[in-house]
């Protein structure tokens, strides 16, 4: 199929010319094949002696002439000029028609109708108006044979039919060419538009990529900035805390009750500021992928006792209870990062404390299944509206972010808890009902001693 197409296609820059030349090639191929079939048929007929042997030689010579003509026209069409080849082909066809049959058959009989072929083909192979040229030529041949050879009155209806055919052929070919030209114009416009859109898209993509790079760079700078600022803030804060503790401890002499009260406020606020700075630093390190989890053996009861020691007084000072329960199926020695687990527990307990006015905060440790253990912190506080549950784990997001909000903090506590849980290959689940309370559950994989030292 590909070979056939390669044989028929003629490379030409002008699409009309290419179409004309391809059409001519198809016609020539068709004629060649029909001649071959006819030859085969006649040869078979000759062998079976269905026709007279003396006619055979002229049939072979005629066929040979047709083949030579086809090949010559094909070569001119392919390598030289389509118009010349088509003209030559149509002229040859007309001449064969004019002299290939008895004169009477040509002007009155079976061959007369055959002149329609070159007339119709001319508008398709050359240009629409060319059919008139071949109608004229065919008419002249018919008149000449009628007057000179046969001395009869020319076949006027036949000649008129030539011109009617030429007219119909001209009209249809012309409209076909117009449609094709319009199509090509539309196509070119479309190509141009596609090219323009592609260019616009490429430019937009490039701008997006640049914007993305700038954002990434900004994000990196932000993390670096936060990390640097946090480090720089922690040292003076440590000094403030230290000196305050020294004053309270009486290193520089006894303080009055009022001075001690003031020192308590200094210590309390320095602690708060330090926690915020630590949270910012942790968030920056998590974002920069610098915060690592260090797995080692730890005592679960010590972890929970530490939480009670850190948070117990605060919880009780608000008139609440801190209840802790460790399920008997939880082994005393566990594997994980006790420092970060403590941070998770403190953050969640702090969060519960912030939003609970009466009742209790309950911390439970239990195995939800054979491969996991869970830390569950539940409170009897205000609860979290359904629509807020989706964003409370986003950094710097708070349920109430209005200027009149009652609760303090920068909104990093839960975000850090979630990210730490994920760094430990665990997950956090929140269940809450407004006015009833909230339960946060951290589900973590149970690790064995061979995980020690893993990040």
């Amino acid at each position, binding site marked *: 199929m590909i070979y056939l197409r390669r044989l028929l296609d003629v490379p030409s820059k002008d699409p009309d010319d290419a179409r004309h030349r391809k059409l001519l090639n198809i016609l020539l191929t068709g004629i060649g094949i029909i001649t071959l079939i006819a030859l085969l048929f006649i040869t078979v007929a000759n062998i079976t002696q269905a026709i007279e042997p003396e006619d055979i030689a002229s049939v072979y010579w005629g066929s040979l002439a047709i083949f030579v003509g086809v090949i010559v026209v094909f070569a001119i069409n392919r390598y030289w000029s389509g118009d010349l080849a088509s003209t030559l082909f149509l002229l040859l066809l007309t001449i064969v028609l004019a002299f290939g049959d008895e004169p009477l058959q040509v002007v009155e009989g079976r061959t007369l109708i055959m002149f329609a072929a070159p007339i119709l083909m001319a508008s398709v192979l050359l240009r629409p108006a060319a059919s008139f040229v071949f109608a004229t030529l065919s008419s002249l041949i018919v008149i000449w044979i009628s007057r000179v050879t046969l001395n009869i009155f020319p076949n006027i209806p036949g000649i008129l039919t030539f011109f009617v055919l030429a007219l119909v052929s001209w009209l249809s070919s012309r409209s076909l060419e117009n449609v094709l030209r319009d199509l090509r114009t539309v196509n070119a416009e479309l190509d141009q538009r596609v090219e323009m859109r592609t260019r616009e898209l490429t430019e937009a993509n490039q701008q997006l990529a640049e914007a993305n790079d700038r954002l990434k760079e900004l994000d990196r700078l932000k993390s670096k900035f936060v990390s640097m600022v946090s480090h720089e803030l*922690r040292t003076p*804060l*440590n000094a403030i*805390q*230290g000196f305050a503790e020294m004053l309270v*401890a009486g290193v520089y002499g006894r303080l009055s009750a009022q001075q001690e009260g003031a020192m308590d406020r200094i210590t309390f606020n320095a602690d708060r500021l330090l926690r915020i700075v630590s949270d910012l630093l942790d968030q920056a390190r998590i974002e920069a992928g*610098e915060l690592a989890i260090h797995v080692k053996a730890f005592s679960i009861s010590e972890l929970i006792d530490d939480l009670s020691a850190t948070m117990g007084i605060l919880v009780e000072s608000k008139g609440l209870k801190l209840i802790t329960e460790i399920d008997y199926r939880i082994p005393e020695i566990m594997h994980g990062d006790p420092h970060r687990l403590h941070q998770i527990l403190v953050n969640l307990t702090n969060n519960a404390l912030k939003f609970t006015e009466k009742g209790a905060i309950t911390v439970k440790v239990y195995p939800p299944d054979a491969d996991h253990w869970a830390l569950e912190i539940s409170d009897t506080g205000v609860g979290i509206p359904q629509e807020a549950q989706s964003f409370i784990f986003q950094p710097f997001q708070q349920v109430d972010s209005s200027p009149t909000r009652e609760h303090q903090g920068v909104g990093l506590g839960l975000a850090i808890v979630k990210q730490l849980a994920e760094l430990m290959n665990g997950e956090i689940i929140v269940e809450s009902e407004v006015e009833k309370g909230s339960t946060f559950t951290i589900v973590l994989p149970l690790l064995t001693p061979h995980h020690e030292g893993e990040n």
Partner: protein
Amino acid sequence: MNKQLAFVIEDEPDLATIFSEALLSVGFETKIITFGDVAIKELETSVPAVVVLDLHIPRLAGTEVLKYIRSDERLKDVKVIIATADAALAESIEKKADLVLLKPISFLQLRTLAERLKTTFE
């Protein structure tokens, strides 16, 4: 009886004062050193009972000072308390130190620790 010597190797003067006061208050004699190379020179001539060591100090890193202490037979009984804000670095040298404290370090916390250390020497 002579007071036991404690080195506070810390370049932040306020923090050095706090650490030093915590050690003084439980009966150590203290010396504040700001530079790593000075610390090595001091360690060549005297053997402190306790060293509070910041890891980020000028001229010679705290890790090098720790390496020096651990490589010298004379200093084998020195108790080294690392005081740093760098959790990752602290983790990596945890085994070489007697104690690792992550900044912020409270005066009371260090005083309690120093008191405990003091009783082990007596």
